[in-house]
């Protein structure tokens, strides 16, 4: 073999190495040099093929891991959605408004009143007032440990909104300690009807009911034809 022929041959093989490397770099992980000759250069060619093998393995491994991570992530997101849903359900549950007597709604408030809960509580109550046409609602806060200015503010707003819908609110269950605290805070709750216990509030509500009934009866008596019209 002439020297010149040899050099041309080697140049060709180097070109091929370059092509293969370019192909791999472009993403073709199946490209290999697969040299058939046995000489000094073939050692390098084999080494490059091995390197590409390693690289391919690693990339495949990484893809697999990435897919696993993505799967796990979507699972976690799914679980998170469930948790949020459950939390919302719980919020709804924790402000149950019920009609306990003709014309009387009761909303027992338990636990801490943060702004989100108060919002839901208020909406529930107002909806129920419209739905049932009740004109008396009792907010029992026996289960609320701390009444600060924000809670008081929320209560005032709820009472005012209910009033706009034609319902009177009674707040019951203010403990002596909380009563003193409210006074020291300086908040004026005198525009709200309050009763010490839920029982007191119920008795008040029923009396109020009876009075309305009496007035209805009276007007019926004064103008017996009213019903006919």
């Amino acid at each position, binding site marked *: 073999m002439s020297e010149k022929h040899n050099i041309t041959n080697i140049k060709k093989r180097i070109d091929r190495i370059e092509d293969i490397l370019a192909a791999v770099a472009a993403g073709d992980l199946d490209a290999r040099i697969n040299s058939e000759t046995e000489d000094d250069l073939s050692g390098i060619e084999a080494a490059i093929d091995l390197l590409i093998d390693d690289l391919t393995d690693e990339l495949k491994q990484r893809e697999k891991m990435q897919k696993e991570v993505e799967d796990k992530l979507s699972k976690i997101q799914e679980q998170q959605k469930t948790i949020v849903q459950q939390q919302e359900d719980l919020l709804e549950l924790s402000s149950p408004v019920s009609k306990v007597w003709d014309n009387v709604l009761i909303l027992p408030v338990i636990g801490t009143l943060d702004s989100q809960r108060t919002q839901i509580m208020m909406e529930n109550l107002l909806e129920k007032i419209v739905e049932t046409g009740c004109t008396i609602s009792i907010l029992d806060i026996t289960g609320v440990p*701390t*009444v*600060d200015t924000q809670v*008081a503010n929320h209560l005032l707003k709820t009472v005012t909104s209910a009033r706009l819908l034609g319902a009177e609110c009674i707040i019951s269950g203010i403990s002596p*300690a909380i009563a003193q*605290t409210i006074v020291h*805070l*300086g*908040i004026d709750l005198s525009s709200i009807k309050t009763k010490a216990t839920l029982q007191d509030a119920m008795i008040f509500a029923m009396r109020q009911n009876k009075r309305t009934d009496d007035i209805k009866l009276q007007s019926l008596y004064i103008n017996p034809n009213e019903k006919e019209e």
Partner: protein
Amino acid sequence: MTSDKNWEELGRKNLESENDIVMARQLVRHYAKQLRMGIVDQTRVTTAVSELLRNMYNYAGGGEIKIFSGLVDEKDALIITCSDSGPGIEDLELAMSDGYTSGMGMGYGLPGAKRLVDRFEIQSKVNVGTTVRIIKWR
């Protein structure tokens, strides 16, 4: 501001979410009870703390509360510090007056908290932050 190296730190909590307010409040009530304060005093100090924490959360985006027990003027006391790195309060006298609010509140938080405790110290610097220390005798 009143301070003493010999106070025993009972607890501390970082305030980041509204839920942290609830937890910090429970912490305060727990220690007030542990120090054998009566139900009225427990409620008063917890409510005062609630006001300070809500302010930190609303106006400074968060802060930190530290609870100590120790001697102040030779009397046993529960000492609570609430500090934030928020915008600070420009006019302290105005902020401390009944009915003043820069937002949608009632404006009774700060003056009300002051009336609920035995000692109330406030320091504030615009763009640096606000620190309030309240003291309740045991």
